């Protein structure tokens, strides 16, 4: 008879623990930080590795997010003027970049962290597109993951939670087994070493005499996409994630310093928060955003498989799962791999998602003061069509409005109404022409935006139906005590998609997307003044940290990763003629950058 597993009390296990997080200020990382600080006051300390961006240091980026980002609204409400003092004793910012060996952290910082860090949570940076340039893929997602593993190996107590994506199962999978496969979704052998060399070769490709820089990027993207397609991945991001998973687990097991206990968590597509920090919190243009944008106006079809399963996941559910798994890692009871696609394992189909978007629009239109708009827009509902040439898609409507506009432009009122007595008619027609042209121009711009956003997520809409497997996580939730289940396990219960989509997701995008279109950034809260008390870690210690970074010589920091794989890349480049002499230059540049 087996002994029942002991109960896992989240707050007890996390009490006094110190966590190191990457990926800030991404949406998920912000949510995790806000959730930890708001809901787990007993947590020991939070260390954030934040890269410099432009002239903004990592610390400045954190303070800016703290003062303005909507994710921290509950913290600002709870602590008011004392927020700065509260955080100074709870959070440390380490300026570093995962693209650099050991995340760019100097020796003294690592020494300081060595005795403190219990869990490293690596949240990959959110990517703006699913077919990124292979250089970005290599640096941010593949090498970045390895650098984090190298850093973790030097922190004696640290265990690693590595976040990946459910897209690693490929676009045509009908099952999503909770295991790491040595075979790609297309059934081909998937050797991480060979894939890494291939990716490094692609990243080495530079613009040559016949090619501009933009064309070179396109060449790299196309080659990576072809490789991803060969293996049955929907896009290059999924291919990169699959590769990173293998490399992370390989490095965890074979690191010369120590074996690092590592857990992978594959997540679905992140969407607006269901509850925390507030319903509808989100700051990026995700899959739901593309569908929302497409549903505005006269679009009646998007190219996609209506049966396609969309594993959508509210960002606060993902953050809760990270907390639960961090606790399980601390307790030493975490499995090697978990999956979380949709709350309770109940995903939506593309057809249902579009239907909910239609109904959300209908509900929003109920408040419209213009009856004509209400009736006209209700006439057209969005649906998914598998054919690329389907009428009513934003792409087709864009072409159509361009054609009509061109024809309208060529209409000369003087030729149409040559009679001198028709001057009034000519004037009316000219006015109509100007208005119609302006309207068509506006529509064309909207269709262009919708079309672009849909193209970004097209690979996700064309796949097949699959069943979500997240049994490991459900079993872990069974072990949580009652309080933890109520506060941190919303992801284990089915979500009411109708209420979520119509009352939370669609209104959230209605607020967010116009702001993203006009200002290129998510709406922020009014500035909040932060006061730091006597324990002013942000004022003193972190400035010291930044100085240390500036004084240190990163070239002397050589990671295991840099040693082992740059050698492989050199070999790969010499084997491939397309890169020519640029390849060596590129490596020199990489090394000097690191």
């Amino acid at each position, binding site marked *: 008879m087996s002994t029942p597993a002991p109960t896992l009390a989240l707050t007890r296990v996390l009490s006094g623990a110190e966590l190191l997080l990457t990926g800030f200020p991404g949406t998920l990382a912000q949510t995790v930080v806000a959730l930890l600080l708001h809901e787990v006051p007993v947590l020991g300390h939070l260390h954030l590795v934040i890269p410099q961006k432009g002239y903004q240091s990592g610390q400045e980026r954190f303070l800016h997010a703290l003062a303005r980002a909507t994710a921290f609204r509950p913290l600002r409400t709870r602590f008011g003027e004392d927020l700065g003092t509260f955080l100074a004793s709870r959070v440390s910012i380490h300026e570093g970049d995962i693209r650099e060996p050991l995340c760019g952290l100097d020796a003294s910082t690592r020494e300081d962290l060595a005795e403190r860090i219990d869990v490293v949570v690596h949240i990959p940076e959110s990517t703006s597109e699913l077919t990124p340039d292979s250089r970005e893929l290599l640096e941010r997602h593949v090498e970045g993951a390895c650098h984090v593993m190298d850093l973790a190996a030097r922190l004696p107590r640290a265990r690693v939670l590595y976040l990946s994506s459910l897209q690693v199962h490929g676009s045509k999978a009908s099952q999503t087994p909770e295991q790491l496969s040595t075979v790609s979704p297309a059934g081909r052998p998937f050797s991480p070493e060979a894939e890494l060399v291939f990716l490094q070769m692609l990243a080495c490709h530079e613009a040559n005499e016949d090619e501009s820089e933009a064309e070179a990027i396109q060449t790299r993207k196309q080659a990576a996409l072809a490789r991803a397609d060969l293996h049955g991945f929907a896009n290059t991001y999924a291919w990169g994630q699959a590769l990173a998973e293998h490399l992370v687990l390989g490095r965890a097991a074979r690191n010369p310093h120590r074996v690092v206990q590592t857990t992978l968590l594959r997540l679905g597509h992140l969407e607006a928060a269901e509850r925390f920090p507030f319903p509808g919190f989100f700051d990026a243009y995700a899959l739901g955003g593309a569908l929302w944008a497409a549903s505005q106006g006269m679009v009646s079809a998007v190219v996609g498989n209506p049966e396609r399963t969309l594993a959508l996941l509210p960002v606060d559910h993902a953050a809760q799962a990270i907390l639960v798994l961090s606790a399980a890692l601390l307790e030493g009871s975490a499995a090697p791999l978990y999956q979380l696609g949709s709350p309770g394992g109940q995903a939506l189909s593309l057809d249902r998602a579009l*239907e909910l978007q*239609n*109904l959300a629009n209908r509900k929003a239109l109920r408040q419209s003061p213009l009856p004509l708009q209400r009736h006209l827009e209700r006439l057209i*509902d969005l*649906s998914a069509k598998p054919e690329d040439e389907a009428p009513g898609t934003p792409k087709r409507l864009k072409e159509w409005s361009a054609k009509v506009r061109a024809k309208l432009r060529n209409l000369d009122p003087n030729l149409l109404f040559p009679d001198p007595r028709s001057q009034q008619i000519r004037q009316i027609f000219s006015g109509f022409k100007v208005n119609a042209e302006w309207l068509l121009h506006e529509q064309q711009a909207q269709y262009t935006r919708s079309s672009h956003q849909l193209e970004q997520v097209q690979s996700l809409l064309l796949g097949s139906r699959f069943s979500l497997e997240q049994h490991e996580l459900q079993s872990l939730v069974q072990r949580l005590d009652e309080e933890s289940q109520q506060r941190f396990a919303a992801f284990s219960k089915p979500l009411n998609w*109708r209420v979520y989509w119509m009352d939370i997701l669609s209104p959230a995008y209605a607020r967010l997307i116009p702001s993203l279109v006009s200002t290129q950034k998510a709406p922020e809260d009014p500035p909040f003044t932060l006061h730091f008390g006597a324990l002013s870690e942000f004022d003193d210690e972190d400035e010291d940290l930044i100085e240390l970074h500036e004084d240190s010589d990163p070239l002397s920091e050589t990671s295991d990763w840099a040693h082992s794989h740059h050698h492989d890349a050199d070999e790969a480049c010499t084997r491939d003629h397309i890169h020519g002499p640029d390849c060596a230059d590129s490596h020199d540049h990489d090394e000097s950058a690191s």
Partner: protein
Amino acid sequence: MSRKAAFFRVEGALTRPSPLPAATFYVLNQREVSHRFTRLGGVLASAGLSLLAPLGERQEATRLAWSNLRGMSEDRLAVLSEELCERQLIPSLRPNVRALIEQCRQEGFVIVLISEQLEFAVSPLKDLLQADVLVANTMETHEGVATGRLVEPVISQLSGQWAKAFAAAHDLDLAASRAYGSTGGDALLLSAVGEPCAIAPDWRLRTIARDQNWPTLEDAA
């Protein structure tokens, strides 16, 4: 000890009757534009059948009307029902019906609402009027899509047998109960209770009420 109930027919007695069958609103708001017109024909045909059918055989017409909703998503059914209640049912409530229901409640009657509409649509009305029981049609769904079949028993024209079975299931004394209706189709239900009452009756129920000496309330209830 058995309780006594006050049965209120929603269509006609509580709300002003609509000239079109209840399914029309749903059909006109189908997702596919082509379905809106083709299925509307089906609903109108069922309305004609309902007028021609003899009393007691209107269930088939009701079934036929609702069958035009096949293929509609459960989400759309719920949203349209909410809209229907908000835009049509609640604004068309007869004046003073709330006072009448309140009076029945104070006299110790269990308030039962009976409707041909889908349960989704009349649930908010039940909450609004603080009724105790709602008897309405339920659309059968499979994997989130309406099959077009109504779950038995189909609520259309209610017979005396239905009233007896309902009373037995809910421990109600029909002889001490009341019923309010407004069309000839409600006559069987009204005749099964001790205190029948016609509200703004159509010509058929008006004739029966006069013959049976049932009290009649005009539009102001």
